[in-house]
C-alpha cells in the first residue's frame, strides 16, 4: 500500500521531467534523421527500465533540492542586495546558530538514507538477478577496436553485430553476456538495453539484457581503448524467435564455397589474411581479427566505421587507414586485380 502510494508519488513528481527528457530525445532524433538516438530515456530492456525508474526518482529529489536551495539563494541575493540609498552602516552581525546547523544536518541525512535504500534495491535487483535456464549465453571479447561475439552453446562466432532473441513477460529469453578482453580495457554500452559494464583483461565480467522489443539498438565502446576508440561501434539486433532461429541456422554453416571466385579465395589463403581471420571450412583460422565466415550477413564493416558494400570493402582492403586511421589491419599492398578478386570472394560469404 505504502509502496504503491510512494510509487504513484514518484510518477507524479517525475512526470514533467519525463516529458522534458522525451522532448529532448525526440527533438534530437528529429533533427538528425530517422534513426533514434541511443538515449537512456528510451529503455527497451528490464535493466535499462529499472535504471530509468531509479533515475527519475533521484532526479525528482535532487530537482526538489535544487529548487529549494537555489530559490533561497536567489531570494537572499535579491533581497539583501546593496541599495543606492543605503546609509553605509554595517548590517547586524550574526555568528551562527546551533539549532539551525542541526536542522540542516539532520534533514540531508534523512534524504541520504532514502536515496541509499532506493539505490541499493535496484543494485541488487539488477546485479544479483538469477540467471534463468532459458538464458542465451554470449561471450563478448573486446579487441582494439572491434567486438567478438561467441555463442559457445550454438557454435557461432561473429563480430560487431550481436543478434539476440526478443524476450517477453510470458516467454523470458534474456541474454547473459560474459565480458572478456583480448588486450586493453573496453566497455560494453547499449544505453537502451542496459548500463555499461567494462571488459577488462584478466577480470571476467558479466551483464544481462532482455530486450522487450525487436529492432536495432546502437551503442559503442565506452572506455577509452586507444587510437580508434571512437570507431568501436556496436550494434545489437533484437530478432523475433523465428528470425533468430533462422540467423543461427545460417551462421552455423561453413563458409560459402563458390568455384567462380576461386582466385580470390586463393589470394585470401596465401596472403597474410589467414593469420588474423577465420573462415570456417577453409584453412583460414586466425583469431586476431573478426571472423569472416558470414561477413556479408553483417550490415557494417570495421566495427561500424563503414556500411558493408562492395565499394567500402574494396577501399577497406586497399587501405584500412583511409576508413579508420589507426586500425590494426595493415594495407596488404595488393594490385587492383587482386583486390577485385578478393572482394569478389568475400562478397560470397553470406
Amino acid at each position, binding site marked *: 500500500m505504502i509502496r504503491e502510494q510512494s510509487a504513484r508519488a514518484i510518477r507524479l513528481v517525475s512526470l514533467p521531467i519525463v516529458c522534458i*527528457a522525451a522532448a*529532448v*530525445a525526440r527533438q*534530437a*532524433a528529429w*533533427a*538528425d534523421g530517422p534513426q*533514434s538516438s*541511443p538515449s*537512456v530515456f528510451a529503455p527497451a530492456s528490464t535493466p535499462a527500465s529499472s*535504471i530509468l525508474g*531509479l*533515475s527519475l526518482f*533521484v532526479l525528482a529529489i*535532487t530537482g526538489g533540492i*535544487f529548487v529549494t*536551495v537555489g530559490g*533561497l*539563494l536567489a531570494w537572499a541575493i535579491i533581497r*539583501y*542586495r546593496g541599495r543606492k540609498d*543605503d546609509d553605509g552602516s*554595517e*548590517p*547586524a*552581525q550574526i*555568528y*551562527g546558530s546551533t539549532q*539551525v*546547523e542541526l536542522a*540542516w*544536518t539532520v534533514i540531508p541525512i534523512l534524504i*541520504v538514507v532514502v*536515496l*541509499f535504500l532506493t*539505490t*541499493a534495491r535496484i*543494485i541488487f535487483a539488477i546485479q544479483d538477478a538469477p540467471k534463468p535456464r532459458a538464458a542465451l549465453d554470449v561471450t563478448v571479447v573486446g579487441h*582494439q577496436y572491434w567486438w567478438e561475439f561467441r555463442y559457445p552453446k550454438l557454435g557461432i562466432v561473429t563480430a560487431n553485430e550481436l543478434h539476440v532473441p526478443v524476450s517477453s513477460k510470458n516467454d523470458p529469453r534474456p541474454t547473459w553476456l560474459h565480458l572478456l578482453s583480448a*588486450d*586493453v*580495457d573496453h*566497455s560494453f*554500452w547499449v*544505453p537502451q538495453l542496459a*548500463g*555499461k559494464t*567494462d571488459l*577488462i*583483461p*584478466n*577480470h571476467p565480467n558479466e551483464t544481462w539484457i532482455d530486450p522487450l522489443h525487436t529492432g536495432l539498438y546502437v*551503442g559503442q565502446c565506452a572506455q*577509452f*581503448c586507444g587510437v*580508434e*576508440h*571512437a570507431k568501436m*561501434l556496436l550494434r545489437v539486433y533484437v530478432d523475433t524467435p523465428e528470425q533468430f532461429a533462422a540467423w543461427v541456422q545460417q551462421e552455423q554453416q561453413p563458409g560459402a564455397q563458390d568455384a567462380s571466385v576461386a582466385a580470390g579465395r586463393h589470394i585470401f589463403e596465401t596472403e597474410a589474411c589467414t593469420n588474423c581471420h577465420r573462415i570456417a571450412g577453409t584453412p583460414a583460422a586466425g583469431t586476431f581479427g573478426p571472423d569472416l565466415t558470414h561477413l556479408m550477413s553483417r550490415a557494417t564493416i570495421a566495427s561500424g566505421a563503414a556500411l558493408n558494400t562492395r565499394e567500402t570493402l574494396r577501399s577497406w582492403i586497399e587501405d584500412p587507414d583511409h576508413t579508420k586511421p*589507426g586500425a590494426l589491419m595493415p594495407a596488404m599492398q595488393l594490385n587492383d586485380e587482386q583486390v577485385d578478386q578478393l572482394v569478389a570472394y568475400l562478397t560470397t560469404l553470406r
Partner: protein
Amino acid sequence: MADQTLPIAGTLDVTPRERSQAMLLESLHGWVVTVDHKRLGILYVVYSIFFLLVAGAEALAIRIQLAWPGQHFLSPQVYNRMFTMHGTTMVFLVGMPILFGFANYLVPLMIGARDMAFPRLNAFSFWLTAFGGLLLYYSFIGGFGLYGMGSAPDVGWWAYAPLTAKAFSPGHATDYWALALIVSGFGTLGTAINVIATTLSMRCRGMSLLRMPLFVWLMLVVSGLTLVTITPLTAAQIMLVIDRYLGGHFFDTQAGGSAVVWMHFFWIFGHPEVYVLVMPAFGIASEIIPVFSRKAIFGYPAMVAASVGIAFVSLGVWAHHMFTVGMTSVGNAFFVLSTMLVGIPTGIKIFNWVATIWGGKIRFATPMLFCIGFLFQFLIAGLTGIMLSAAPWNWQLHNSYFVIAHFHYVLVGAIVFNIFAAIYYWYPKVTGRMLSETLGKWHFWLFLIGFHITFDTMHFVGFLGMPRSIYTFEPDRGWNHLNFVISAGGMIQGIAVLIFAWNLVDSYFRGKVAGNDPWDAWTLEWSTQSPPPAYNFAADPVVRSRRPLWDLKHPDDPDWKYEA
C-alpha cells in the same frame, strides 16, 4: 586600544622599502633564487595562468574537432593527445599550483607570520613543480625519442592499464607523463608539509586554531589530504615505470598483472584530489562572501568541522569511479553510501554561505559575482554528483558526456570561478593596483554565459548516449546540434579568458592605485601595505578574534565579545 595590538601599515610600518634599481638580469636572478613566500606565490600563479592558456587552447582544439561529426581538424592520435594533455595540465599544472600559490602568498599574511616555516623547501617545491610541467610538455618534442619527433601522452589523464604498457604505448610519451607527475608530485608534497608546519607553528599571538581565517583552515585540511593522496599516485607511477623499463608485471595483464589495481591506486588518489582542488576554492568563497555581504561568516565552527569531515569521507569514496568494473553488489552499495554521505558536510557548507548572505548588504563587485556564480554552479555540481553516486544510474552515465559535464561543473563552475574571484580580490594586495571592474564584468558575464552554454548542454548529450574520449561521432545519433552548441560556448569562454589575461597585464600598469584595504575587509593581509613589504609586518600582530580588522574598525563592538 586596538592600535597598540595591531600594526596598520602606513602608520606603524617601519620596514625599509628597498627600491632596487637592478638591471633586468639581476631582477630575473632575484626571482630565480628567491625564497620569499610572496614571490614564490606569484611564480606559482603566473606559471599556472600560463598553463591555463595552454590547456584552454587544447580544449578549444578538442571542441573544434567535435563541432561537427566526421571532422578532420585533428587526427585521431592528435585528438587523444589533446584530451590527455588538457586533463593532465589542468589538474597538475593549473589547479594544484595555482591553489598552492594562493596558499603560499596568503597563509603567512593571514596568520600574521613573516614567511613560511621552511622558505627554502618552499622554493625547492616550486621548482620541482615547474620542472614537472616542463618535463610533461617536453614530450611534444621527445616523446618518440630517436624514432622521430612530435608526440605527447595519449592514454587519457587517468592512464588506465594496460593501455600504458609498452606493448600498447610504445615510445616515451607515457614515460614523460609518469615522470612529470612523480616530479611535480614531490613538489606538491613539499608544499603541503610546509603549509602544515606554517599553520601549526607560525601563527601570531592570539591566533588560536579556531581564530584562523577559513581559507587557512581549508589549506591546512587540504595539505593534510595531499600528503595522504599524492603518495599512492606516486607509488603507482613508480610501479608503472618499473613495468615499462624493468620488466615488472604490476599492471601487465598479459603476464598476470592487474588492470583493476591501477584503477584503485589512481582513484584513491584521484577522488580526494577533487577535494584537494575544491577545498581551497571553498576557502576563497569563505573569505570573499562575508566581506562583500558585510557580515561575519555564519557558523564558523560548523564550517571547520564540515571541511575536516569532507576530507575524511573523501578518502572512502574512490571506487565510485569504478561502478562499471564489476565489483560485487555489496561493494557497489558501500560506495554508494559513502559517496552520498559527502553530500551532508557539503550541504552544510552551502547552507552556511547562504546564511552568511542572508541579512547582509551585498556589494556586487567582480569577486563577489564570481562567488555567486560559484554558489549556484556548485549546488548543481553537487546534485549531479548525487545522481552519479546512484550506482545503477552511474552504469548509464559513467564515461558519458554527463560525467564530463558534472566534473567540469566542479572544476570550472566551482573551482575556476573561485580562482577568478580570488585573483580579482587579492590582485590589489599583490600588485598595489585594482583590476579593471569594467573588464572584470565583461569577463564574468561572458564566461558565465559561455560556461552554461557548454556544460549545461553536455549533460543532455550524455543522456543521449555520447561517450567521452571519442575524436568523432556518428552523424545519425542525434548529437550533432548539441555538439555544435557546446563548441560555440567553448569559444565564448575562450574570449572571456583572453579579456581576463588582458586585464591582468593592463591593470598592472594602468590600474587604479589600491591602497592597503580596498575592499574594507577584515583579515590580517589587509592591514599591511599593498604590495606587502619584505617580511610582511613591521611588528608582530596580535589578534583577539577571527576578524582583527573588524575589531580595529569597530572598537565599540568588537568580534571577541561574541565569538564562542
